[in-house]
Structure formats: C-alpha cells, structure tokens
C-alpha cells in the first residue's frame, strides 16, 4: 500500500513537471500575464491616478479595496473563531493536564528583548507608513508589531504581555481596524462617490483627488495594521494556553 502510494505520488509529480514545460519562460515579456490588457492598464495608469509608486499597494488598497477589506474581516473572524473554539464549553473535554510554570525569566534574554522590542515596533510603523513607496504595508507591519508582543510573552511570561495588551482590548482594537477601513469607504460614499472610491474625499480635505487616494490608502493600511496586530497576538495567547489565558508556553 505504501509503495503504491509512493509510485502514485511520483507519477503525479512527473506529470506536473512535464506540464511545467508549457509555462512561459522566466521573465518572458510576451507571456499572457505580462501582455494582458489589465496589467498594462495598471502599469500605465497607477502613477497618474493615485501618485503611488508601489503598484502592488495601489492595486490592493485602491483598485481592489473591496477584496482587501473582506480579507481583513476574514482575519478578524479567524481570530474570533480560534478564540471561541479554544474557550469551548465546559463539557467539551476534560482538562486533565494542568501546567505549572517553573521559571525565572532569563536575564540575558529579557535584557535583549528590552533592547530589541522598541526597534521592532518602530520598524513595524516604518513598514506600515512606507507601504506606498517600498514593499510593505498594513499586513506586514501588523505582523511585525504582533511579533513584538509575542516576544514579550515569550521572554517574561504571558501575564506580563497580557498586562500590556489585554485580550479584551485585542478584539476591540481588531474591530476598530475594520471600522477605520469601512469608515473611510462609507465617508467616500456619503460624499457622493461609490463605496471605497477615495477620490471623493478631496471634497472635504484640501488636496487634489489623486493625493486624496494616496492618503486614504495610508488610512486603510493603518486599519489593516490594527486588525492584524491584535489578531496575531490573540492567536498566540489562545493557542499557547489552550484557551485558559494563563500558565501558557
């Protein structure tokens, strides 16, 4: 049975490798992805429409803003689902293993974390704010920010990290991120445009419509960053303690 499965997997792998011959060559300018009308339209018009140098951010946060907003909602729902499944009901299972934490926080590690956590947080803010001109954006900055809180929880203990960022505040902040995102969309809707059509924000702010799209993208990224930061930390806090929120890893 094992040998049959191995031969089957090998066969499928060879089939896939054989199918890879039909792909366009690496960096081929005439490949369908490079020569389609959509990508050439974005390459030609992104800089004119939005004044954002990084096209990926412009496509993600402006042209496909609806998609990104519901991706953020998916992240939020995933965090909420993990939290509520781990909390569970009383009769879900017997908690037969109680953990006891015997440690003193390591001196060298805690001092290194003391030095490195502010740098990580400033770097996360830099990544978030520079999503327009260089790779980066809300998701990456939010993950780095969440990693800094996880680092605090790892080097001292979870109680210290939860004192700085309680679990209730995690979900409040995550919901606040979605509210920021949807609020910018709703604001542009009330100003006469469609939902998430940031160019209409120029009616209330003293900027040109292009710069309004530029700055609205920054606001949207900040919303995504809030949600991702809070959900990443809540995921770690839930998973490491099996939902008990104390005496974890």
């Amino acid at each position, binding site marked *: 049975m094992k040998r049959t499965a191995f031969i089957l997997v090998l066969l499928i792998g060879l089939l896939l490798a054989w199918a890879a011959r039909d792909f366009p060559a690496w960096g081929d300018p005439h490949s369908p992805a490079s020569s389609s009308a959509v990508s050439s339209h974005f390459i030609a018009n992104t800089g004119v429409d939005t004044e954002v140098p990084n096209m990926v951010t412009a496509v993600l946060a402006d042209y496909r803003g609806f998609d990104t907003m519901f991706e953020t909602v998916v992240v939020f729902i995933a965090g909420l689902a993990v939290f509520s499944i781990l909390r569970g009901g009383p009769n879900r299972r017997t908690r037969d293993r109680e953990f006891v934490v015997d440690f003193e926080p*390591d001196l*060298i*590690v805690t001092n*290194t974390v003391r*030095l*490195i956590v502010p*740098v990580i947080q400033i770097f996360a803010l830099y990544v978030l704010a520079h999503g327009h001109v260089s790779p980066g954006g809300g998701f990456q900055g939010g993950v780095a920010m969440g990693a800094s809180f996880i680092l605090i929880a790892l080097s001292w203990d979870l109680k210290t990290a939860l004192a700085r960022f309680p679990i209730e505040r995690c979900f409040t902040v995550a919901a606040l991120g979605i509210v920021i995102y949807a609020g910018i969309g709703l604001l542009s809707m009330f100003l006469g445009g469609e939902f998430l059509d940031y160019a209409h924000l120029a009616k209330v702010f003293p900027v040109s419509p292009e710069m309004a799209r530029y700055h609205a993208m920054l606001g949207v990224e900040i919303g995504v960053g809030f949600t991702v930061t809070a959900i990443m930390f809540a995921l770690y806090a839930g998973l490491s303690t099996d939902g008990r929120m104390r005496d974890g890893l």
Partner: protein
Amino acid sequence: MIETIASAALSESANSPGWFLVHSIGVGMGILGLVFFLGTAVGMVRFPDFYTRMHAAGKGDTLSTMLMLAGFGLVMMEDFSAGSWLLLLKILGIVLFIFITTPSSSHALMRAAFEDDEMPLGEKDLKKLRKRGGKPSAR
C-alpha cells in the same frame, strides 16, 4: 561576483583613490566573512557533540554575517551621496541587530539543551571515541 566587483574596482581606481580604498576594504571583509562561514560549516559537520557544535555555529555565524554585511555596506558606497550614506546606516543597523540577537539566541538554545539533560562528552567518552578512530556509533 567577487571577480566583477574586483575588476570594477581596478578599472575605476584611477579617478578616485578613496573610493578604491573603501571598495577593496569591503571586498576583503566579504571574503574574510566567507572564510569564517566555511569554518562554521566545517565545524558543524566535524565536531563530536552538541556543545562544541554550538561553539562553532554561534561564533562563526555571528562574525561571518557581521563581516559580510559590513563589507557589502562599504562596497555599496559608490558616490558618497546621501542615499548611499543612508544605505550604509541601514546595513550597519542590521549588523548591530545581529550582534545583539544571535549570541543571545544561541545562549537561549544552549540553556534549553542544558536543562533538557543533554550531556556533554566527558573524558571517557572522548577516549572511547578516539579508540574507534573518531567515528560516532550508529544511533
């Protein structure tokens, strides 16, 4: 790649001796870092137990990474403009972070191994090892 950098350094050295000095120092540091990383790789393969391998990996890894990155920062100093100074500053920042984090992560791993009862090799074990010609027994 080293050859291209070196040939560029030799061809344009006439118009700017300071640039040539910085460039050659950077290339030398990069090569020195590669030598140290070779030491790390050989040590990881050849040493007999976990703690000696930790010695090779922790020290050689940190020093070689720092040397290579600092060498790259110097090689990138093409025209001493503001952008290249910013780049050098960022790369020196990476060097500083690696100098802080890598030793303390190897300290944490070492302590974890010690508290998990991973025993170092003693005198007797080393004698036994030498008698067999340095080959570890099959596990």
